[in-house]
Every structure is written in structure tokens, then in C-alpha cells.
């Protein structure tokens, strides 16, 4: 305000000089009266081209001077309502401390849709108490956060391997298979190998593939119905086969092992079936299956343990051929959602025409194990 009314310091300075007049700085200082603001006045005067300065002297060069800055300030003071001013100018004036810029925020406040005379918080949960006391009426509930996760539940679960087993079991039951008893992990070499036409020197009967037992070391007795027939089959010239032509040892067959496959159970079912047919003189077709544990003394790795489960199936009927075998297998996989099944011939001592599903190189499309 002072500057607006009295004039800016440079204006005042100019008044002290006549046009063309030159005075030393010392003299000016004395006239000025105080050092206060003198240098600023000089600078501004020079800037406005009213005076010219050297190191020691000041000379007024302008004839007429107008204190524009002061008049601007006067205008501003007069204006009650703030107007648009040049920003740069405002900055300059601010720098000279001739004016200060205050920011005032204005809010226009009106009633919103949720306006309440009394302040109320949003309710997060509905409680039994609220229901009882009816305090839920008129209450606003917090919107649920769609990005948050729920509370971690403590749950029971089935084992993933058994979930798969249940799936296989269902499929086989649907296909009309009857479940076989397999409740003996310990079996004799007779049932696990010999009765299945696996010769006694076969590598699978080695210590490095099979677990032998020290207790109980030998089975109590060999099945009398089968023992002689098995001996004949191995030694050859029987049942239309030349056999393996070696001396079959009953003592070797008595050795107990942890079963290496569930096929001994199938073999027992075949014996029971043959006895039933002999007794009743009637043949009814049969389909048997089992899914149970087997044990092999093999190298373990990320996907192989020495104990694992095997799925076993058996169909006894007249007029079943390779086609029906492949048909059932294909249908089994079909029900698992695997449709591109190809068959490859392979060898097993107790089957002719064993085959396997896709070879490892097709695994990328089928993801199936390499033997069925």
C-alpha cells in the first residue's frame, strides 16, 4: 500500500534528480537518508532506463517518468474483486515484496444425496444383535471389495492319487467290471512269476528288481491243483508249447516276495473261475479289475517310487479277440478324455499280444504312461 500511494522507491529516487543531473553514489546516499532500499531503487531505475550508473555516479537520463508500477498497485488496491493479472508481473512485484500473493480456497457446499443430520459410519457386518434390536433399519452397509480374498478355510481333502483312483474305478465299474480282492501284498514267487509263465531265471526275478523276504521266507505250500501243470508248462512239450526247456525248481517258486504286479490276483481269479465252471458246467462271461499297490526294487526318481499302484483288468469270455481288448482300453481312455490312442506291440511273458499306448514321443499330445 505504501508503494502504491507514495510511489515506488525508484520513482522517489528519480524525483531527487533533475534530468541530466549526475550525482555520486555517496551524495545520493546522503540525500536518500538511509541505505534502506537505495540499491533496489538504483537497480530498478536502471532497468526502467531512467538513470544510468557507473561505479561512482548516478545520472538521470529520462525526462519524463511515469510510475507505472505504483499505478498498477493503486489499481489493484482499488479493485475489490481479484482480476486477471499478468503472471510475470505478479511474480516481479512479489519478488520486490510490494505485494504478497495469498491463495484462498472457496468451497460451495450443498446437500448431497446421502445427507444426514447426524453423522453415521457404514456398517461392515450384519449381526444377530442388530436383527434382534432392529438396529439394521436405515443403516448403510459397506460395499464389499471385489478385489479382496476371502478367509482361508480349514478343510478336509482327498489325496490326489486316490482322486485319480476313484476316477478309474468309476470308469471300470461303468464298463461292467467286478472288483477283485487284492488284499495280500506278500505273495509267493509261484503266483507272482511261475504261474504266470515267467521263467525262473528271468531278470525280473532278480534281487535288483524284486523284494525278497527273510520273514516269512518261504510260502507254506504250493497250490496242489496248479503245481504240476506249471512245472510242465515251464519244462516244455506240453499244452502245445515247447516251453523254456529247463528244470523247474519248486523251492525257487516257494520264495516269498512283495508282489511286483497285481497279476497274481488275476491268476487266482482264473483258477477260482475254472473251478466254478468245472463244478457248475456253466460258463458266464466275467470282467474283473483291481487297483492296488505293488512293489519293485527299482531306481527311484522324481516320478518313480518303489511302491506304486497298478490298474489291472481281465476279461474272460468266448469270442474275445485283440479287437475287444483294444476296444475296452480305447473306451477307458475315451472316458478320461484321451481320444488319440495308438497301439504298439510289446512283450510280456504271460501274454501274447500285449500292447502299449502312445510311445513317449507322442507324450506331448497324450500325456499317458507308456504301458497299459
Amino acid at each position, binding site marked *: 500500500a505504501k508503494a502504491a500511494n507514495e510511489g515506488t522507491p525508484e520513482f522517489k529516487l528519480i524525483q531527487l534528480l533533475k534530468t541530466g543531473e549526475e550525482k555520486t553514489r555517496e551524495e545520493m546516499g546522503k540525500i536518500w537518508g538511509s541505505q534502506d532500499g537505495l540499491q533496489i531503487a538504483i537497480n530498478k531505475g536502471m532497468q526502467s532506463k531512467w538513470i544510468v550508473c557507473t561505479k561512482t555516479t548516478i545520472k538521470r537520463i529520462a525526462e519524463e517518468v511515469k510510475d507505472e508500477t505504483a499505478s498498477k498497485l493503486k489499481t489493484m488496491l482499488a479493485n475489490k474483486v481479484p482480476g486477471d493479472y499478468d503472471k510475470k508481473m505478479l511474480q516481479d512485484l512479489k519478488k520486490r515484496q510490494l505485494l504478497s500473493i495469498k491463495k484462498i480456497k472457496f468451497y460451495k457446499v450443498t446437500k448431497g444425496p446421502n445427507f444426514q443430520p447426524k453423522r453415521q459410519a457404514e456398517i461392515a457386518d450384519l449381526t444377530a444383535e442388530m436383527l434382534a434390536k432392529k438396529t439394521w433399519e436405515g443403516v448403510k452397509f459397506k460395499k464389499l471389495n471385489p478385489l479382496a480374498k476371502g478367509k482361508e478355510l480349514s478343510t*478336509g*481333502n482327498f489325496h490326489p492319487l486316490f482322486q485319480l483312483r476313484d476316477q478309474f474305478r468309476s470308469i471300470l465299474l461303468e464298463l461292467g467290471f467286478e472288483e477283485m480282492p487284492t488284499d495280500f501284498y506278500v505273495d509267493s514267487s509261484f503266483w507272482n512269476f511261475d504261474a504266470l509263465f515267467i521263467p525262473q531265471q528271468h531278470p525280473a526275478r532278480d534281487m535288483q528288481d524284486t523284494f525278497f523276504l527273510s520273514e516269512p521266507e518261504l*510260502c507254506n505250500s504250493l497250490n496242489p491243483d496248479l503245481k504240476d501243470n506249471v512245472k510242465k508248462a515251464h519244462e516244455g512239450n506240453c499244452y502245445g508249447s515247447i516251453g523254456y526247456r529247463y528244470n523247474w525248481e519248486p523251492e525257487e517258486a516257494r520264495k516269498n516276495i512283495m508282489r511286483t504286479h497285481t497279476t497274481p490276483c488275476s491268476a487266482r481269479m482264473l483258477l477260482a473261475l475254472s473251478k466254478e465252471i468245472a463244478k457248475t458246467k456253466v460258463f458266464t462271461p466275467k470282467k474283473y479289475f483291481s487297483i492296488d499297490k505293488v512293489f519293485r526294487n527299482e531306481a527311484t526318481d522324481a516320478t518313480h517310487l518303489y511302491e506304486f499302484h497298478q490298474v489291472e483288468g481281465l476279461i474272460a469270455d468266448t469270442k474275445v479277440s485283440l479287437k475287444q481288448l483294444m476296444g475296452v482300453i480305447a473306451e477307458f481312455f475315451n472316458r478320461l478324455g484321451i481320444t488319440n490312442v495308438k497301439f504298439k506291440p510289446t512283450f510280456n511273458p504271460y501274454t501274447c499280444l500285449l500292447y502299449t499306448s502312445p510311445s513317449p514321443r507322442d507324450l506331448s499330445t497324450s500325456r499317458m504312461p507308456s504301458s497299459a
Partner: protein
Amino acid sequence: VFFFNDTATTEIYTQAFVGSVRCVQETGINAEYMGIICQLGSMPTIYVIKDTLISLLGKQLTDEQFMDICFDYGLEIELTDMKAMPHRDIAHEKEDQIVYKIDVPANRYDLLCAEGVARALRCYLGLSDPVTYSLTNGGKPIEKIVVDSSVKAIRPYVVCGILRNITFTPESYNSFISLQDKLHATLCRHRKFVAIGTHDLDTIKGPFLYRALPPKEICFKALNQAKEMTAEELMVLYEEDLKLKAYLGIIRSSPVYPVIYDANGVVLSMPPIINGEHSKISLKTKNVFIECTALDLTKAILTLNEVICSFSQYSNPAFTIEGVEVINEGKSEVYPKIETRDVLVDVEYVRNITGSPELTSAQCVQLLKKMDVRGEVISDLAFKAIVPPTRGDILHKCDIAEDVAVAIGFNNLKPELPNVSGTIGKQLPINKLTNELRKVCTCAKYNECLTLCLVSKVEQFTKMRKKGPSKDNKICVLLSNPISSECDSARVSLLPGLLKCLRSNIDVKLPIRFFEIGDIVLLDPSTETGARNARRLAALYSDLSAGFEYIHGLLDYIMVKLGIPCDKEVGYQLRTGKDESFIEGAQLEIVHKGVPIGIMGIVHPEVLLAFDLGYPVSLLELDIDYLAKVFFHQLILKLIDNEFRLSLIHI
């Protein structure tokens, strides 16, 4: 790679994996031994350079085509490179050749070399007819070998044959050596049953003598050795040889070792250990004398046939073999026995097996040619298969039918579903009950576990504060050749398995609830094998406190679901138990009419310490077999019944 603590154990495993041990060395870490053992699976593998196979086959095929053909034939092919080939087989400087790794069916000894595979595939592709092998000189042998009775005790049989005017190339030479290795490893059971020896006939002079002598009296320059050594010295020398040491045990303990001499006293070989340096074969060998000494004559004949027939293609004239007379106890036989064998097959049988009712006798014979088996039509109803000496795997007419099926191509037969009208699906009652119980436990928020049946004695007895098996009290099934002491017995309870499972899952949120329903193995002299399975249910609860009431709660829940009341007369009862694994007094036995059918309680802190567990545990184990036997039929009915009633009761 296997690590052992001492030489004794290393020895046992080296013997067991006879022939497959690549190297054994002392690691120096507390004198531990390292044995690199490559296991032979039941599918033998051969490595064949692709170019060699193509030239033997006589037809250019892409890798893709090869794989498809082999797939349909029953062979598994994998592409690899020279680096994968076993040491022996590398003869070539050409390092970047494509090599096929072929998995051969375990009974097809004729496919254990490139020549065999090529011959089989040539027939399969119709590029040639099945080979007929013949003995030269009208079957009359020129050479002979006399068998002395001294070998009867140690290695009674020998069979021999000769290939004349043979021309080896580096590939065929390597193949010849490799085939012998493969046969030794498979059919010969690591030289135990049969050992093959091959000799340059031009360096030796017949008649030959096969006898057994005390080791001190056998002296010769063995293969690759600089000087003559006695058999005793050789046995000592080969103790250090990684490959040969495995075979020493076959004759070591015998007072006499078998040896083959020629007429000038030159040692051909000391089977099954090593051949002599004098008669060794080389690329330049023109006439090969092959001998197979054996414990089993059948295997010896088969082995000789495989070696001599496959390589007879290189003699001149091709596919001719010279017989050798073997005189044993005055009896004279000419080997090799390469006569064909006739198998009579009725066409109806083949039709039934292949499911192809339109197959004719003539078609069967045509198809068999693709499988390297000649045949003759006898009538519309039957044909004769003429089995060559290389197909020792054909035992019965079912093998002929199988070959017809392979010749047709399995994937050319259309799969059909069997007539299902005759069979109805059926579950085993015990498995049905097990599944119901699994649902019950899962509903109770218990997590299902699957633990191993083979456990260590320490784990299931010592750690559980129980007495282990002894001579008078053989509580459990014991393995005689376990992989390690980690699994030397079969479990008699599910509880140690659950505790071990807990140890592996200690970072799971508390409270921890596990269950398992599975079989244990018990000794039972009344069964055929002396052991039987028994089904148990076990549950584990662990939290900051033992929470026995929760395990008890599970038992109550299970019994309610099964419809078994807590009643002295018709249901179950609880009484204080005396199981060492639980805290004294803090355990209850579950009984039915005085018969114990389960146990539950707070696990003893010493047991927790032994299993390295920091939180208290309560356990439950129930005999499911008993429940099934006593309650089953009513159970299944009640299960259905209970579901309707229980929905009204707040549990």
C-alpha cells in the same frame, strides 16, 4: 550313482548288478565307495548308427518313417548322437553321426544288433523274403571239439560253429563285439549261463579240447596282456578290472577252471572270464570260430544261433554256416542247430485271436513272411509255420497268431467293445466301506494321506517305544534285500507313517488333521504265504495342545456315521489302554465285546522327540476289517439310513 560305506556292501551290490557297474572308486570321504550302476531294464537297448542301419536295410527312410515303422513292429526308437554310444562301439572319427537308440522287446534276442534289426525290417517292409540258413559241406563238419568229463562239475556244455570267408568292416566288427556283450547281458545272464568266445580260426588248429584244470596248471597269455600268466594270477589281476571282476565269482570257488585248447596246446579261452591273446579276432580275420560254453544247453544253442545267423550274412556264400562236431561222453552232435521248426496252426485260432474272421490260410502265410517266418498252406483250415533258428521266442501257436497280428498292424484292426450284456459292475464291500469312511473323515476336515507300506524297523518299533521283532517274536514281515534300512520291513500300523507325514508338513496351518485308510501287513501262518493284509484307519491331530478331545470326537463321528452305538452289548466300548506309544493313562482302547479293535490317545513325548516333532499329537487307529466283518451288511444299510436320520441331528 550309489554311495556305500564299506567295501563289503559295495561288493554285494557290484555282484548283484553284475555286468552293469560302470566304475567303482573310493571317494575318500570316510572311505566311502561310489559305484556308478546303470540298470538294465527288462527292455534291452542297442545303439545303431543310422547310416549303418540304412545301408543294411537297403532303403532310404526319414527318421519319421523309421519311427512309425518301428512303432508298428514293436520297437521303440529314440534319436541320439555318438556320445551316447557305449564306449566299445565307437570306431569312427565321424563324431556327429545320428545314432538310433532302439529298445528291443526282452524276448527278441535276434534284434540285439543292427544286422538283426535290418533283417527283420527288410522282411516287414517286403524288401526280402525270410532268410534260409544252411550248413556248408552238406552239413558235414570239418572241425571238431572233444569235451572232457572234467568240465561236468563246473561248466558242462559247449557248442561251436564257424563262419568262413567272412569280411569285416569297422561297423560290422563293432557290431559283432557289441552283439556278444548284449547277449551276455541278457540271455546269458551276465555270462553265468552262457559265455561266448570268438577266435580267428587261421591262428589255431583243431581238433579242440574243452576241459577243466586246477588254476595253477592253466597258463597262457590272456587278451591284451604282455606275458603269460597262470589262472591264479589272472584271477588276482582281474580283481582290479571293473568289467571282469563281476564274472570271477562264476568259477572262483571251483577247484577246476574250464579251458579250451587247440591241438597245439594254445589256449583259446578260459570261459567265462577271458579269451587268449593268440586267437583274438581283428578286422582282417577271414574265418571265425565261435564257441559257447554253458550251464544250460538250451540257452547255449540259442545264443550260438543268434550270433552265427546274424553274421552269416557277411560270409561267403552269404547265410552259410560251417558246422562243428562236439563229442561229449562218446556222443557226437553237430552244432549249430539251425534246423527250422514246424508249428501247425489252425486258421480259426488266428481268426479268433486277431478278431479277423475273413483271414484265409493263404493270407496268414503271406503275412507271416513279413515277420521273417516262412509258411506253407496245408488246407483252408490250417497252415504250417516254419520257424527259423533265430526266432527262439516262438514257443506256441499263440506266438504265430501274434506275429500275424503284428504283420496286419495293430492299428489296422478296428477296436470294438466286447458284448457287455453278460457282466455287471460290482465293488468289493471292504472298498465300498473304505470309500464311505474316506468321505466321513474328509467331512470332518481331515486331510487324506498316502504313506509307504515299507518302513524301517527303527521307525515302527524303536521310535514308537515298542519292542522290535526278535527270534521268538517275529512281529512283522522283513525284507531280505531292502533298498536301504529306511524300508526293511512291512508296516504293522499306520501310525508311524502319519507321524512321518507330520514331520514333513510342520509348516501347515494349525490345527493339523491327517487321516489314512490303508493296508498293513501281518504275519499269519494260517495263510498260503504266511502273511496277510489288514485294513486300518488312522487319524492324527496336532495343535498347540494335544487336543485329545478332537480325536475322540472323530471316533464318535465315525461310529455315529457307521451306526455303531457306544454300547457294551451291541456296539463299542472304551477302556484305558496300555500302548507304549501313548502317555500312560492318556489313552483309550476301543473294544467290541472284549475284542480290541482300536486305540487312541496322546502321543508320548519321547515318540514326538524321536520323530523330531515340536507340537503335541493325538492319534487314533481303528481295525476296519473287523468293523466290516462284524457290522458290514447292517452298516451299508445303516449308512443309507443314517443319512436320512442324521440330517435332523446337530452333530
